[in-house]
């Protein structure tokens, strides 16, 4: 995903001289082509994220399109006030990219985990929040983000995430992508857990439960039209994300659901527990620990579906 980001931003930068990349002392080699093609528009801002965020806001206030890139916790929690005041209060087009989001850097320990970013970015006025599932969505999200006249946060994984084919449809920020159609259950995913969610959907289909999958690459603004449709049609809607069950897409959907008078479907959310992960482990281990697996999704969703069908 990060290679796709570097490739796409290089292409966009070549055709839009307002695009500037700021990095927090990571991905130096990653941006070699950007630097070559877009001389004078790459800034290694060092390990000083607060300054980097405000510098980007100053550039955006002067008509540029800065894109900030560093590891998710350092481009969100580390410089949160600069995001709130300088990017959001001024409502300027700063694109903030958090790489290695969720549990991508599980092995590095909780300092490098990012399971709160969707919650804290979503609450900020003027902020658009994106969580692409794969590199195809990432490229679309990045191009879309650079069309928005306000701040955007994009959380991405690391590298090697498989691309999942979607159904034929036009991409738009704020509108989910239907990955597969189904009637009984809808699995909604924000981000790179899409392959596990697809496995779960196929397993549920094999059990005779027709399962739809929606990729909510846009967490904010929330795609209420799609939510209205799936909550009206299905018996169970599950939200799956590599993020705390507090405040992420699951939280956003729950807030929306509380305002609906007669939803047909029951909601279940999958995400990380409200804790720091003290054990060492790979991303796969960490996902298993928090039940972010096809197996667990199938078992929980099936149980809820059976109860709802009685």
């Amino acid at each position, binding site marked *: 995903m990060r290679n796709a980001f570097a490739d796409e931003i290089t292409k966009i930068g070549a055709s839009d001289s307002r695009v500037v990349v700021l990095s927090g002392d990571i991905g130096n080699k990653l941006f070699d082509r950007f630097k070559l093609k877009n001389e004078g528009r790459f800034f290694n801002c060092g390990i000083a994220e607060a*300054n980097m965020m*405000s510098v980007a806001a*100053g550039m*955006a206030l002067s008509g540029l399109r800065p894109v900030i890139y560093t590891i998710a916790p350092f481009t969100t929690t580390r410089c949160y006030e600069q995001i709130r005041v*300088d990017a959001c209060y*001024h409502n300027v087009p700063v694109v903030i990219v958090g790489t290695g989001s969720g549990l991508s850097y599980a092995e590095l320990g909780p300092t490098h985990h990012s399971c709160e970013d969707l919650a804290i970015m979503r609450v900020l006025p003027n902020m658009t929040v994106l969580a692409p599932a794969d590199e195809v969505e990432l490229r679309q999200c990045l191009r879309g983000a650079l069309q928005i006249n306000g701040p955007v946060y994009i959380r991405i994984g690391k590298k090697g995430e498989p691309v999942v084919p979607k159904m034929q449809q036009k991409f738009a920020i704020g509108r989910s992508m239907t990955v597969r159609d189904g009637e009984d259950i809808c699995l909604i995913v924000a981000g790179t857990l899409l392959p596990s969610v697809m496995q779960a959907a196929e397993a549920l289909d094999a059990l005779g439960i027709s399962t739809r999958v929606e990729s909510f690459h846009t967490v904010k603004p929330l795609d209420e039209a799609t939510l209205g449709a799936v909550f009206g049609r299905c018996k169970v809607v599950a939200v799956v994300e590599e993020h705390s069950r507090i405040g992420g897409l699951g939280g956003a959907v729950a807030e929306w659901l509380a305002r609906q008078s007669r939803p047909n479907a029951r909601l279940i959310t999958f995400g990380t527990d409200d804790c720091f992960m003290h054990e060492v482990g790979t991303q796969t281990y960490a996902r298993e620990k928090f039940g972010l697996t096809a197996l667990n999704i199938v078992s929980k969703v099936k149980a809820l579906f059976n109860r709802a069908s009685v």
Partner: protein
Amino acid sequence: MNDLKKIASEIRGRIIATSHNTRTPHLGSCLSCTDILVAAYFDTLKIDPTKPTDPNRDRFILSKGHGAAALFQVLGMRGFYSEGMLESYGEDGGLFAEHPPTPEHLPGIEAATGSLGHGLSIGLGMALAGRIKGQIYDVTVLLGDGECNEGSVWEAAMMAPIQKVGNLLAIVDFNKWQGTGRSEEVMELGPLVDKWRAFGWEACEIDGHDMGALRGVLGQPRTLIGKPQAVVAHTVKGKGISFMEDDNNWHYRIPDADELAAAYRELGLKL
């Protein structure tokens, strides 16, 4: 120079009257930077109040946003908006808060400040943008000495010289006080000029109430590529009113009617 001094006295009077009328604090901080603001806006900045978004204008950021009451008066008198607008100061539903709003909401403002330690970085971004876009303008950022407690100030201080932003000027309104005490007793602030030099800046110190000295540093021609410049401006908190000078109670205190009248007398103004 005498004209600038007269303007500064007039601005001081309006700041104190507004504080009295609307119970707005931070009087001491506003009075310490009044001369710097007047020198910049009435003497050296390349600005046109009728074109507040001209891409080639000089930028001035009041990073010590609690000096807003002074900035609002200066921008009004300079013609960025009608001075009558300032009558709504502090009113419910009005525009004038205790800190500067965003440029979108008030012409003449370059950045909404109030949370300290943001302005120098924003100014650095603006200075770099000028270079990238090939626009010739200078960026001046006015910081407080207390504000220099913020780590982000020194993050920006480290980045600016390596990027050779010759069009960036930082002024520290060194009034020797912050909210609760002497700034040099709260944190190890000094030696302030040497600190900026050690960070790679061209640095000097001046009397921040001397209009000639202010013209010298603010009006100095700058280049797109070069060393950023820091000026430590020695100032007096509450400057201009004998009973407010160097008395930190006026960080939050509001003048009563007698004090307002006394201040006007000292400034040679009529109430």
